[in-house]
């Protein structure tokens, strides 16, 4: 198969003796030359609050501000650094809309989510109606394989308002909360633990809006995992 990113043929090297073992077939979608451009976050060197790569586990400046402003408990973990290579990838996947590119990270990301502490519900952040009409897919659920998520939230953004990604940082932080709970019986989520899933943690504004909505509905603990930070 050809590499999803550079379109060159992937040459797989099998170690000797490997062929003899019955292996579950795993398709390689991206060549190693392309993959080295992305950098994983080292947990021991990441902010305890948002998961960004730094030199210690201490809360970063942004997280200290959040701590001063909010009263609830919330933290994020991320798999990759949001560097140039990742920005290019996100541009092609999300904004250009090349849905095939979900396979570059879906297995790795789903595995990463699976390794987190067990929770009652996995909730992928929803996209609004207009995005469904133009992009045609939810970029978060695209990145998940065989993980069952529950749609506890809906997003209702006013037509005139810009998307988060079109805003400057300060504008983003001021955005109002458009998430609403979408469950038949509110008792279902009382005292439950939730892990929110998103593609990028930028300011944390969107994820915290979702968390606030869930806490207000009686959830016990809400945290999040993102592909990158």
């Amino acid at each position, binding site marked *: 198969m050809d590499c999803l990113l550079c379109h060159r043929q992937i040459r797989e090297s099998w170690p000797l003796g490997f062929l003899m073992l019955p292996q579950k077939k795993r398709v390689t979608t991206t060549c190693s030359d392309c993959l080295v451009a992305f950098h994983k976050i080292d947990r021991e060197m990441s902010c305890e609050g948002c998961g960004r790569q730094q030199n210690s586990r201490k809360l970063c400046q942004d997280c200290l501000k959040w701590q001063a402003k909010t009263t609830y408990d919330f933290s994020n973990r991320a798999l990759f650094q949001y560097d140039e290579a990742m920005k290019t990838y996100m541009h092609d996947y999300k904004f*250009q*809309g*090349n*849905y*095939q590119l979900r396979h570059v990270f879906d297995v790795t990301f789903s595995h990463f989510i699976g390794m987190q502490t067990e929770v009652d519900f996995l909730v992928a952040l929803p996209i609004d109606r207009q995005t469904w*009409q*133009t992009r*045609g*897919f*939810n970029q978060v659920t695209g990145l998940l394989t065989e993980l069952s998520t529950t749609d506890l939230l809906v997003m209702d953004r006013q037509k005139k308002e810009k998307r988060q990604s079109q805003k400057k940082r300060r504008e983003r932080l001021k955005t109002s909360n458009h998430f609403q709970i979408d469950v038949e019986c509110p008792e279902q989520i009382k005292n439950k633990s939730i892990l929110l899933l998103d593609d990028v943690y930028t300011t944390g504004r969107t994820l915290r809006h979702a968390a606030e909505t869930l806490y207000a509905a009686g959830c016990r603990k809400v945290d999040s995992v993102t592909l990158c930070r």
Partner: protein
Amino acid sequence: MEKSDFYGRLVLMSRAEKNTTFKLRKMPTMLVSEKRVRCLRCNTWLVKAQVALPHEEFYCPACIQLGRVTTLDNFFTLVEPNHFKKLDHYLTWQGQLTTSQKRCSKEVIHSFQQGRDHLLWAVTGAGKTEMLFPGINEALKDGKRVCLASPRVDVCLELFPRLQAAFQHVEITLLHGRQTEPYRYTQLTIATTHQLLRFYHAFDVLIIDEVDAFPYAQNKQLLFATAQAKKTTGSCLFLTATPGDELLKKVHQKQLQVSYLPRRFHGFPLPEIQTKLALNWYGKIQNKKLPSAVKQFLKQCEESKRQFLLFVPHISHLEFVQKAVNQAFPKLYVTTVFSADDQRLEKVQLMRDHEVNGLITTTILERGVTFPEIDVCVLGADDDTFSSAALVQIAGRVGRSPKRPTGNVLFICAGLSRSVKKAIQQIKFVNHKAKEEENGLSAVSSPNT
């Protein structure tokens, strides 16, 4: 959007989009069959499972660089109305054409008037751009919409100022992938062939430069884009220095008429290719030794103080060959260059300034990079990397100057490959054509390939 943005174009808009103040024609973006879907912009067949979006929607990754085609959208278009302002004068260029350029340009004008396709086979250095001016002029005067397209961005960038200078009062739109300016509706357009996919029966005259710059597979897509971008009544002019099999077949089958510009502007024929066999040329350079044919070639260059280009098939050969040349000819200054070389421009300049005697290279270098009085040697001409088109281009580097319209073109190979044979044959053929022209014969024939 303005109404004229839709003239002869495929504009992607959401399926849910209510028509604007003017009535638009709406067309589907993809053809959905049982297992596959076909993109109606780039004509690629795609496997459904690989290009599916949620909810039974599909998209095309093949032409996504031009903006994504999906079943969520429709194409909107308006029939090309040729709404152009009439000018008193179009062509402001005052130059003179040679007799054969004049003959070709007449044939081209004729094909435009008749609305049929035509092939112009012009050797490198024949001045084909100038030859196009009268044809473009006539078409513009007739109110036709004209596009000049090339597969290469650098060629488009080079053509734009030349055309603007020749047609000073005509507005020209330049379209290519790296551009940020918005689209404008004008009578004359210069575009990369990729951009043609955005048009729909727009052009009365579509000129495709360097039609053989790409291999056959991509050529098929190019021919699709061409057919879609021109009007059904329009004509297409293909320009080439080395026609590929596909076009020659059409010529043979009389589906395509052809004009020859077999003579360079200075009137001399193309230098013909000499070949020398060297069975183990690669083994020799690995041992820092040069095949004797290369030695002879370099000795001649050294004695006559002529600059040279020495082509090798792969980047990995460059270092070996340079070492071997340095050892055998300590007085010759040479440097190596390859297409992705950061210092490519500087090295080309060294050659121009005669700071070096020659370049050892893997690349034909850009169009417009010409060294007037050089000799050329291709080491390993039978290697797969050299297509017959590339070999003809390489040979065409020699004899560009009227001061020295001849020169040596030497191919060193372990055997005569099909590409080498074809290159030799094509050059012989155009030289034969040039002679025929001289003797006043105008029989239309083509080589047997």
